[in-house]
């Protein structure tokens, strides 16, 4: 440390902090380099697993067979499930309920081309454990969405005169989910014709590519 006594304390401080932050930055850059690909793959695997739960059996990979729809001021990816002949069997997209009990609730919904819900899954939420988190843990409640369409259900919780159960001690959470799924179906009803047309157009080159080799 003897040569450093020549430096003024201020310069020593600047030097020390510069070196520390430079090393920290290098460490972070390196970590990003190593983890970027695995993080991307982990996120895809996660999405894939959720999609498998809301879509009926299919022959394609819906993640790579997706359309982007611009609605409500944002781009919504719509994942398409097809059978072996390339026919669309269901579509899946994510809706966000901004009015959960604590923060936004993200819901992935799978819907048949005729507008019937196949299944829904909550993919992210911050609801109270044991109360609001029934939207994940209460399977019967989650499954009560399957088979529902815009025109065969009253889209509200029972307390509000609808068809969906609320939970004991938690009404706000299921109410938010029902509302969001309802909005999701309305989005599909509005976009249905265009969506299905675009989906079947996508199918052509995909099927040809498969037949050629």
């Amino acid at each position, binding site marked *: 440390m003897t040569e450093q006594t020549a430096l003024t304390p201020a310069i020593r401080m600047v030097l020390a902090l510069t070196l*520390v932050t430079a090393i920290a930055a290098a*460490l972070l850059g390196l970590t990003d380099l190593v983890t970027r690909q695995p993080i991307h793959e*982990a996120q895809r695997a996660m999405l894939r697993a959720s999609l498998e739960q809301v879509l009926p059996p299919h022959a394609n990979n819906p993640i790579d067979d997706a359309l982007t729809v611009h609605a409500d001021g944002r781009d919504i990816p719509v994942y398409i499930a097809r059978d072996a002949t390339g026919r669309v069997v269901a579509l899946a997209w994510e809706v966000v309920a901004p009015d959960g009990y604590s923060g936004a609730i993200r819901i992935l919904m799978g819907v048949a081309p005729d507008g019937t819900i196949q299944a829904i899954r909550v993919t992210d939420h911050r609801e109270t454990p044991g109360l609001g988190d029934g939207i994940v843990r209460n399977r019967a409640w989650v499954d009560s969405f399957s088979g529902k369409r815009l025109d065969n259900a009253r889209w509200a919780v029972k307390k509000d005169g609808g068809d969906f159960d609320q939970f004991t001690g938690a009404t706000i959470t299921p109410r938010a989910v029902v509302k969001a799924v309802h909005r999701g179906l309305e989005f599909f009803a509005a976009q249905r014709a265009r969506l299905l047309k675009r989906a079947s157009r996508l199918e052509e080159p995909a099927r040809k590519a498969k037949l050629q080799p």
Partner: protein
Amino acid sequence: MSATIDAAAVSRKDILADGLWRNNTIFAQLLGMCPLLGVTTSAVNGFWMGAATTLVLLGSNTVVSLIRGFVPRDVRIPAYITVIAAFVTVVGMAMNAWAHEMYLVLGLFIPLIVVNCAILGRAEAFASKNGLADSAADALGVGLGFTLALMLLGSVREILGHGSIFGVHVLGERYPDFLMFVLPPGAFIALGFIIAGVNIINRRLGRKIEARAGCSPAAHPASEQA
């Protein structure tokens, strides 16, 4: 922040034992309450939070020990925080990549490790005054002690709250969920009983430790630092 240790006088084994039990971050110092109460709804969560914190501590303590002669006193805190924040981000990214589901469960509590005062406390009270090997041993002891506390509280809350441990039902499938222990009040109550139990154990061990260490920080563990 914590009882400073005369490093010359204690062996490495003592450093480990100190962090692990005698000066345990949770049981003795009552530091790091935010992650403790926030994530310990299950034993698995407690384990992962403890493991992440231990890794950060290992990184920050070794680096702080390495740069201790180089960083001027006046800017040591910003330098330590930069080091800690870097390691927290590294651990967060690594978990995101290789323990993705756990990363989503722990969510915000991972970046919040930066403000766990116990970590800055170890940098300031130990690593900035001791050599590399001792600082690493201290990090390991404190980290494992923290993990032990988180897992213990997580297990108690999971057993009482859901009748399971590490996701395996031990009180029968029909156990009715005891919500209070899943929610924050249950964390405080369970922690209170655990610390009471630790104090009883310490009182019984008290004389033995006192005789060996000369002065014992464990005699009144909670009262001095709380």
